[in-house]
């Protein structure tokens, strides 16, 4: 996941990605924790910072990278761009509008209830989204209808330049859960094991018909809100201190400490991923751009 984001970053200075790019560097443990819990029938509705969530849902990484690099071979043929990734087979969608994915996940959750297929619907949002009306409306309906909705909040403490502490009436998001008859928990989002426990519990609750859950995973956005963000709202001291708490270094240390892997093995894995991402990028770069004559396609089906 880290390597995927680092690969995306290469397209910014070259203008291969000609608009905004939002990466989730530093927030990987949260997406990694979802891996393995979701089936094809479970939906995941994501945000503007969506790459890691898509990877967790199993979306094809090459197609994603091609979409982000504005190629016709992209996941959406180049019509979406990096903020708007869709994979209908995997029930993965993203929106660039903060908070707007939660009502969409609500619809998936109601679909699961209608189909009685035991599926859950996950909305991943940032801490900025929890103060939108859409978030409240969807949480309330999910509680009222006892729907299998899981809202995973990546609380990186900053909604662009406004700190969460200044934006929220409550100290935590998790403590708001009872007002929607939901289960709420706050975890350390840098600790993949804590997130795994919380996520696994929320999925179980959803599948058992016990209603919605909110998981508030505390984390830190290592880079600016978008590539090019001057990021002057956070002090250099804060950024340096918080970046030192890297979730990937943390899990590596845990694996070594428990003798599940050696440092050399982990370095080897990292190198091999880095090499395969370099190959993927080289291959994507040789793909064609979408044809300008096709810009008016797909407004309507008929």
């Amino acid at each position: 996941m880290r390597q995927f984001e680092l690969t995306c970053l290469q397209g910014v200075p070259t203008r291969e990605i000609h608009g905004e790019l939002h990466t989730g560097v530093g927030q990987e443990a949260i997406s990694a924790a979802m891996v393995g819990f979701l089936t094809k029938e479970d939906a995941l509705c994501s945000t503007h910072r969506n790459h890691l969530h898509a990877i967790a849902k199993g979306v094809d990484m090459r197609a994603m990278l091609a979409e982000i690099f504005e190629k016709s071979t992209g996941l959406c043929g180049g019509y979406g761009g990096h903020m708007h990734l869709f994979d209908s087979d995997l029930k993965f969608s993203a929106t660039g509008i903060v908070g707007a994915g939660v009502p969409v996940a609500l619809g998936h959750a109601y679909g699961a209830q209608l189909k009685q297929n035991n599926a859950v619907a996950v909305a991943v949002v940032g801490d900025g989204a929890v103060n939108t009306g859409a978030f409240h409306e969807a949480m309330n309906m999910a509680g009222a209808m006892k729907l299998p909705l899981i809202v995973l909040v990546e609380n990186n403490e900053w909604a662009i330049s406004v700190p969460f502490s200044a934006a929220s009436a409550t100290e935590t998001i998790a403590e708001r859960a009872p007002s929607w008859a939901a289960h709420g928990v706050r975890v350390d989002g840098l600790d993949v094991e804590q997130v795994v426990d919380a996520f696994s519990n929320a999925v179980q609750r959803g599948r058992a018909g016990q209603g919605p859950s909110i998981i508030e995973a505390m984390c830190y956005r290592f880079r600016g809100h978008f590539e090019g963000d001057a990021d002057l709202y956070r002090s250099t001291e804060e950024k340096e201190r918080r970046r030192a708490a890297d979730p990937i270094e943390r899990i590596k240390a845990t694996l070594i400490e428990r003798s599940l892997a050696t440092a050399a093995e982990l370095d080897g894995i990292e190198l091999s991923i880095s090499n395969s991402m370099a190959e993927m990028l080289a291959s994507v770069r040789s793909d064609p751009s979408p044809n300008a004559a096709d810009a008016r396609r797909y407004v309507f089906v008929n």
Partner: protein
Amino acid sequence: MSRNLNLSQCISESLHLEMERDPKVIVIGEDVGAQGGVFGATRGLQKKFGSQRVVDTPISESAITGMGVGLALEGFRPVLEIMFVDFIGVCLDQVYNAIAKNHYMSGGRIRMPIVIKTAGGCIGSGAQHSQCLWGLFAHLPGLKVVAPSNPYDAKGLLASAVESDDPVIFIEHKGLLLKRAEDFTFGGEVPAERYTVPIGEAKILRDGRDLTLITLSGTVAPAVLAAEAVAKSRIDVEVLDLRSVVPLDMVTVIESVRKTGRVLVVDEDYLSFGLSGEVITRLVEAGVALKSVKRLAVPDVPIPGAVTLERAVVPNADSIEATILEMVDKR
């Protein structure tokens, strides 16, 4: 012989037939279930199809519209009711950023077969409950927009909207919903069985040689009345009911205006940046020779409360007749 129905019953009949035909059709909105809609347009649906397929919701339009997106992604065909079109402001995000764009943003890979059924039009309820707003929806790419003027078209256009793979904004006129079918001078004969009226096809309700009067929804009946009134002055008006705003049936419009050379667009929506300007611009772009052009629409003011003020800004048979007389001099 007309059946003993009002327009809202024709809409409910259409929904009954669509829900019987396709188990994926689900109706969601405020007061659509037990009450059967504030205008009765969803009456009997919950009793027949159950509360899972006919869902009464809290007053949460963002959740309703977002839910529609999620359900469409799950393979359902949601019919979402936004009680009054004026309320779209609280949930326009899902409508224009998701429902309208998801097909495009996915490069054609996903579809949004969603109907947003909503009531517009002026019935004396002031600025926040009297708007039409079809021009607003039409401006946003990716939405089909229909606004029927009579029971026959309402039933058939709704069937087309529900079976459409594209999102359709279906705007009822509040002044017509409770009007009895037999009181319509056109479109009052409604078959009991299912039929469709194609989206994007205008209908000529009255042939004429002197002027083409283009309108839709609640101003069609006053337009026909005005056309009949000026016939006494030997002015021969062709009345064209657009029925759909998107797609706009310019083939029928151009053919009619080529014949008459005069065009009057009557629009109960706001004047500027809207339907009337769009129709006329497209006529000009098509190179149609125009002897006389006028627009009669709400003159860029909110709909006022008092009836004297309201009548001053909302087109009616008298103001339509006066405008026609300004355009065609047969003395």
